[in-house]
């Protein structure tokens, strides 16, 4: 993973506003004319603060703030390879073998949500990060950070979920760790997993390989996980027959690679959703992406929940979906292979890669208009406006 993660009441889904310096420090326009009526020329919208001295939730939202934290704090401190880990996992050469290596931390509230738990997320999240480099996930570590006072039963249920998810994904929990923090200094259970997997010969999947002409495929309906978790968030609760799509994608990727080794990019659109993932790829590869909005599978409940809260499904988190950039010549075969797999039954071509507007993602709307799908700033907030 490339950045920190925070999933708290309002984090993890997301839309429209861009970031910026506070409007407060803009110099006065000495030459501005002041009309006698209310001064509309001074009309301005407050800009979100950027120059922060403390961590805010948005730093974990997977958007621009996360990227800045990575760029300004971690990369300079670590040096070397860290800056290049724009991909979900790092590819390492060890004695001739190519290994994928990834780590991820999980701070989900609530711990159990419709369709899964923090345990499922911790395993599948890291398995998927490995799979997105084409690796066959093999071994995981799992660290528990427990808060003093949390019920043993809760810990046991989380551990069982970890074990079950690992068995389903075909990986082994090879090592682990447990720490306890004082009551009030944690959120019940935090998990960290790290994983390694083996990248098959001839496979080179990373964001920079996206190329004009590539077809963009999504493996199924988007926004499901984010809406399932939101439906249980304090202050926002609603009833919806939506369960998290949390799943391990290793076997789906294996089936795709069985058709062609020439997959260019794979990405699981977690925090920041499809919008953030596509923007990162477009930026890394200096290509444009054009989406056909009507082709993007959005379940009715996801669309409804998003319109109720003022969110955009493209910015809502997924935990069991992938985006694939595939050469046009391979697209039909890859799509067929995906649809033959239970986790890709609703796979669809949603767009293509172009030479125009490098670094930008654009969507053709249902009415035939166009909108720019920008990188979210931080976490997504329910709107009233």
């Amino acid at each position, binding site marked *: 993973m490339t950045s920190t993660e925070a999933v708290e009441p309002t984090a993890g889904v997301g839309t429209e506003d861009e970031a910026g310096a506070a409007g407060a420090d803009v110099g006065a326009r000495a030459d501005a004319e002041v009309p006698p009526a209310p001064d509309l020329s001074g009309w301005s919208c407050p800009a979100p603060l950027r120059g922060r001295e403390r961590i805010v939730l948005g730093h974990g939202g997977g958007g621009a703030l996360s990227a800045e934290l990575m760029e300004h704090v971690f990369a300079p401190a670590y040096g070397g390879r860290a800056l290049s880990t724009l991909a979900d996992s790092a590819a390492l050469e060890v004695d001739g073998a190519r290994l994928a290596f990834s780590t991820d931390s999980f701070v989900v509230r609530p711990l159990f949500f419709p369709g899964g738990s923090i345990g499922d997320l911790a395993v599948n999240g890291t398995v998927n990060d490995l799979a997105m480099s084409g690796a066959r996930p093999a071994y995981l570590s799992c660290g528990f950070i427990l808060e003093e006072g949390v019920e043993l039963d809760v810990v046991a249920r989380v551990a069982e979920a970890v074990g079950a998810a690992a068995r389903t994904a075909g990986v082994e929990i090879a090592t682990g760790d447990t720490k306890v923090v004082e009551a009030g200094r944690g959120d019940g259970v935090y998990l960290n997993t790290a994983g390694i997997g083996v990248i098959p010969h001839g496979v080179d999947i990373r964001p920079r390989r996206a190329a004009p002409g590539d077809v963009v495929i999504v493996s199924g309906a988007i926004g499901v996980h984010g809406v399932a978790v939101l439906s249980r968030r304090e202050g926002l609760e609603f*009833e919806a027959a939506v369960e998290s799509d949390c799943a391990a994608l290793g076997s789906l990727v294996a089936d795709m690679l069985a058709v062609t080794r020439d997959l260019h990019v794979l990405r699981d659109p977690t925090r920041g959703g499809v919008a953030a993932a596509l923007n990162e790829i477009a930026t890394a590869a200096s290509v444009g992406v054009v989406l056909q909005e009507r082709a993007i599978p959005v379940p009715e409940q996801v669309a*409804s*929940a998003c319109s109720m809260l003022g969110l955009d499904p493209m910015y809502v988190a997924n935990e069991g979906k992938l985006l694939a950039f595939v050469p046009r010549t391979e697209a039909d075969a890859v799509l067929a292979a995906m649809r033959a797999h239970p986790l890709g039954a609703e796979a669809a071509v949603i767009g293509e890669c172009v030479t125009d507007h490098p670094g930008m993602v654009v969507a053709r709307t249902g009415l035939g208009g166009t909108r720019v799908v920008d990188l979210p700033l931080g976490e997504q907030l329910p709107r009233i406006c």
Partner: protein
Amino acid sequence: MCLAVPGKVLRIEERDGTRMASVDFGGVVKEVCLEYVPDLRVGEYTIVHVGFALQRLDEESARQTLELFENLGLLEEEFGDPWQAAEDAQRADDAQQEVRL
């Protein structure tokens, strides 16, 4: 300013002396306060903003609006005068509203 969405009333109940309803927004159900549209009935649609029903949605008006849109192009082809058609439809709208008042 006002993100308000249409929903269908599923159940109505008094809670702590307040008229509340379960409202279905396309498969998503949320509790909504009916104090401002107290005569809403189960099965009717309402426009909801921050957990409050603010107005009953009028199906007849909605149908008329859509019919007007549909007739725009057709009338233009047949009669070449979309304004007149719209004018007539507007008068129909107004008449209908007067009835509702």
